[in-house]
């Protein structure tokens, strides 16, 4: 029943956003598109964080998704944006699943550093392969969306809608997963993996699941971003990309799905304006912003919204949702 309600909320959000998009100027549509796309990658990291993992290599899956989406048109003549997104997602997920068994043997900073190393190796490979445009990257033919071709007039809005829909669906699926038994198990693994194993469940499998979901979302994000930008480059796999994504993840916290997209949007706005109006100090601005958030919002933006009134309910009968946080 809860999942039904969040489904309803998701639909509502989608409709509202699509309508709101109509009013927004092109640059804003694009900004939201980009931030939502990034939001997906961040959502992946958040899922992983919530499952007890930390990654500094999300850029790897971001890049995999992006390059997949960029190459299928030239290699297999796939023009449809949705199809490209699906492929990008699957490719990233597949690679993620390949590495998961290896990675789940590690925790904390080692896990993070290993993902970092992997993504930097991919970065190296991409920068080398002249077939893939080397360090300059490659441009992507504008996609068609469900048969529609994109002109300069409608391109932003169509992509905007597509991104909104994908993000909302992904967000809803994640919220369903967070409510699920596996989702609760992920939280437990984060809290006390050894105990989980003493209960006969596999902490590693749980972490692996989180990681694969993280990879899938990274791929989706990359695929959308690639088509919105019309260009992909090895930088996507660089550690700085991952670093910013992780930052947004921390900014958002792992409490609520929408917080992730809010955080992503917030950073996108701060970045794009600060970069334009004080080009010489935008890193400084970003850094200060980060520190303040980490200092005053340790739980991330997700903690800005009071947890549903369950604490007031008579504890005997209260049935808290596993995914809602503690006060």
């Amino acid at each position, binding site marked *: 029943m*809860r*999942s039904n309600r969040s489904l309803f909320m998701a639909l509502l959000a989608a409709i509202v956003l699509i309508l709101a998009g109509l009013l927004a100027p092109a640059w804003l549509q694009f900004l939201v598109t980009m931030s939502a796309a990034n939001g997906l990658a961040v959502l992946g990291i958040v899922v992983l964080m919530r499952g007890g993992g930390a990654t500094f290599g999300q850029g790897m899956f971001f890049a995999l998704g992006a390059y997949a989406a960029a190459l299928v048109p030239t290699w297999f003549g796939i023009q449809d944006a949705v199809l490209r997104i699906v492929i990008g997602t699957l490719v990233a997920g597949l690679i993620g699943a390949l590495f998961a068994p290896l990675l789940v043997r590690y925790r904390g900073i080692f896990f993070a550093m290993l993902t970092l190393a992997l993504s930097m190796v991919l970065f190296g490979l991409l920068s080398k392969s002249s077939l893939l445009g080397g360090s300059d990257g490659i441009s992507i033919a504008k996609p068609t969306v469900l048969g529609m071709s994109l002109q300069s007039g409608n391109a932003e809005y169509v992509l905007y809608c597509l991104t909104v829909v994908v993000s909302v669906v992904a967000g809803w699926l994640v919220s*369903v*997963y967070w*409510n*699920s*038994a*596996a*989702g*609760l*198990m992920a*939280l*437990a693994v984060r*809290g*006390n993996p*050894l*105990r*989980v*194993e*003493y*209960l*006969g*469940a*596999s*902490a590693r499998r*749980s972490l692996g*699941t989180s990681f694969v979901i993280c990879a899938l979302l990274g791929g989706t994000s990359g695929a959308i971003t690639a088509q919105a930008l019309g260009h992909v480059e090895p930088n996507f796999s660089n550690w700085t990309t991952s670093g910013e994504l992780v930052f947004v993840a921390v900014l958002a916290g792992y409490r609520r799905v929408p917080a992730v997209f809010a955080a992503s949007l917030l950073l996108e706005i701060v970045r794009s304006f600060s970069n334009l109006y004080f080009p010489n100090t935008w890193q400084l601005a970003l850094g200060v912003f980060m520190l303040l958030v980490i200092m005053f919002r340790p739980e991330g933006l997700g903690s800005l919204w009071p947890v549903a009134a*369950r*604490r007031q*309910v008579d*504890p*005997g009968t*209260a*049935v*808290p*949702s*596993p995914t809602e946080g*503690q006060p």
Partner: protein
Amino acid sequence: MNMPLLSARGLMKRFGAVVAADNICIDIPAGQRLSVIGSNGAGKTTFVNMVTGYLKPDAGRIVLDDHDITRLSHQAIAGMGICRSFQIPMLCLELTALENLLVAVAAAEGRQSLWQAADRPAARDRAVALLEKFQLQSYAGRPVMQLAGGVRKLLDIAMALARRPKLLLLDEPTSGVSADEKFPTMERVMAAMQDEAVTILFVEHDMEIVSNFSERVIAFYSGRVIADGSPTEVMANPDVRSYVTGGAK
């Protein structure tokens, strides 16, 4: 003769110079409630850790229902029906009492569903039932980090019970519980076990509890079993008096 539920044969374990287990042989028949006593460092917890697979013995075999579990991981062993509680309760502090039990219930299912809600009626009823067994329902919605030591102990045990284990090992169930709470706590635990077909082994210091709640007592000293029998026999044993109870009281 009915074969034992668990049989440990010639378990050896040494940490450097310290001998933590020296040729330990113990058979546990199904349905028995037995306790393990011994001063600190006598090898009680080492034994529990070997049975539950956290430590691998240097030599010897452990057999559960004639499956050799000596080399299995602690996770696999739990899966085969040996669950345990901990001296210091191992809980997810961020989660509520109920959520902790939902974790235990989900773990009991083997493969966890990615879409079925964790607190769907079936699972929730089971979790609530476990809470009620230990009269913890009033704490259901409280994060564990807000709960008192005694409550955590019980919660820890309740979690261990979630997958209906064949053998349940309780590591000092009353340690960290105030003196006048010890008895009631044990009462609750044992009451909770009534209708569960479970064999119980608990590690304990407190002799009164041992003699009141176990039908068999095993005494450890420096990694060896120095006495094994009914509470009265063991208490009467001179070695036990000098090395264990004497030391204890």
